[in-house]
């Protein structure tokens, strides 16, 4: 038989293991996305401003920031978590648990968010920028009143994709001591041969993906109007 129903402890673990795990997954995801968004926005602004077609081209800054972002992006999340554990310990005092996982997840998320956002901002019609400059708008006004305002729907859909991507990353983090749904699926499901437990968590993750996508689309429609 494909599933082994004989000795599942799903119901027993549901309140004390699985529900708290959902909570810590959401905490990890939420904080890493919020922090990643804040840092990613700053980086995207720097990239868009200093790009060769930007408001204030500066190839040295553009290349340095671009290179750093690409370098961080090239790390697989699970390696990043292990590799920066000294930094994590210095920042939050521990390298285990969901609080600790937020540091590497943020570090992994901000370059992705920055690149998505950069692409969205660069999509804005060049003539609109030209028009704004023609009536004397300053660079920061063009950035925030024109570029971000026009690119908002595209930024929202980029963020939705990134959030779903990093839901998967939180489960990976579970493999190296972060806790959350990934850790539960591995230790209580996979390693104890409790298939039902494992697939139950897969289903929970699936529902979370649907929810994030749904919320993302809802916001997209709201801002597209």
């Amino acid at each position, binding site marked *: 038989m494909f599933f082994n129903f004989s000795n599942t402890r799903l119901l027993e673990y549901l309140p004390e293991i699985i529900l708290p795990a959902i909570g810590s997954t959401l905490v990890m995801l939420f904080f890493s996305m919020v922090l990643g968004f804040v840092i990613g926005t700053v980086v995207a602004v720097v990239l868009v401003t200093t790009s060769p077609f930007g408001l204030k081209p500066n190839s040295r800054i553009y290349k340095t920031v671009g290179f750093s972002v690409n370098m961080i992006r090239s790390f697989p999340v699970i390696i990043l978590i292990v590799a920066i554990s000294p930094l994590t310990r210095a920042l939050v005092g521990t390298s285990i648990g969901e609080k600790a996982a937020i540091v590497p997840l943020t570090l992994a998320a901000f370059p992705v968010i920055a690149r998505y956002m950069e692409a969205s901002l660069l999509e804005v019609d060049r003539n609109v920028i*030209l*028009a704004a400059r*023609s009536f*004397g*708008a300053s660079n920061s006004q063009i950035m925030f009143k024109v570029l971000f*305002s026009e690119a908002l729907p595209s930024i929202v859909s980029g963020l939705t994709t990134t959030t779903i991507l990093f839901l998967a990353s939180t489960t990976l983090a579970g493999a190296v001591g972060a806790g959350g749904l990934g850790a539960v699926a591995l230790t209580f499901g996979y390693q104890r041969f409790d298939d039902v437990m494992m697939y139950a968590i897969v289903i929970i993750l699936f529902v979370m993906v649907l929810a994030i996508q749904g919320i993302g689309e809802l916001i997209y429609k709201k801002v597209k109007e």
Partner: protein
Amino acid sequence: MYYNVNHDAELGKGNEVMIKVQNLCKSYKNGRVLSDINLHVQRGEIFGIVGQSGAGKSTLLRCINGLETFESGKAIVNDTDISQLNETAMRGFRRKIGMIFQNFALLNRKTVVDNVMLPMECWHYPPVAMRKKAEELLALVGLTDKLNSLPHELSGGQKQRVAIARALTLEPDILLCDEATSALDPAITQSILELLRDVNRQMGITILMVTHDMAVIKTICKRMAIITGNRIATTGRVSDVFLAEPAELRELVGHKEIYAPAGRSLLRVALRESVGGPAALYELFAFLKGDFSIVSADIEQFEAESYGLLYLHVAAEQLEQTVLCCKQHGIECSAYSPDSPVGGMADVF
């Protein structure tokens, strides 16, 4: 062929120069875009620059409001030498120059009224004054019922009206139009041109337009320049340029080759209402006693004065007499020998 209707003389006393471009040169990495540009635009006039795509018209326009820099030469706009401006001063300078574009350049996610308020927002106008000004200008361009529409709900002509309203919010002295009607169909183009003419007359705003469409220039511009090969080939009153038909103009509007059949001669007649006018033309036709045919006729009107260009076939043996008759009545004309097309051939007289 270099043709210049002594435009410095035309800038007589009382005509303040609003835009003065002197020996302006600009290059991009892949070559020259503007060579030795000289241009005078008077305060309060509508001036047209016409040229083919890639001739450098738009770049010239952007040099005038500092959106592009240039290597040498001068641009003095509204008594300001723009190469002397730092970044902050440049922003303040641009405030007094409105600009509209071929593709309207509206913010797609903002309503019509928010689009119009954006320049004022950038200059920190009080919200109530901003709203009032935006509504006034939208009434002026005839879009009172579209205040809360989004740009994608508007037609091309309406979008350009919004863009015009937006360009007028900061009460500019100059309005730059970069192919402003090129994306619109002819009837809408006419209505936008009428609006621009009203703006010019009512607010005294100097308008500099750039287009590839000679018809637009003929409709609202008093004076014009033709740009070919990155330099200004011709400047002058639109009617003078039109009647003189310099080579650059023929190149621009397309070559029309007209031949005269055997025994007939081709006569080119330039008419001005102010010189002779319809009476002179009547005299000419009376002289020809019906022995002529009209090959082509372009009659234009600007500010109640009409002018036109006629091509006639007349009997070859009558040609000399006909030319004399024209001269008597003050009609400009030139004649061409049989079998030679207009354009690039020797005149007979």
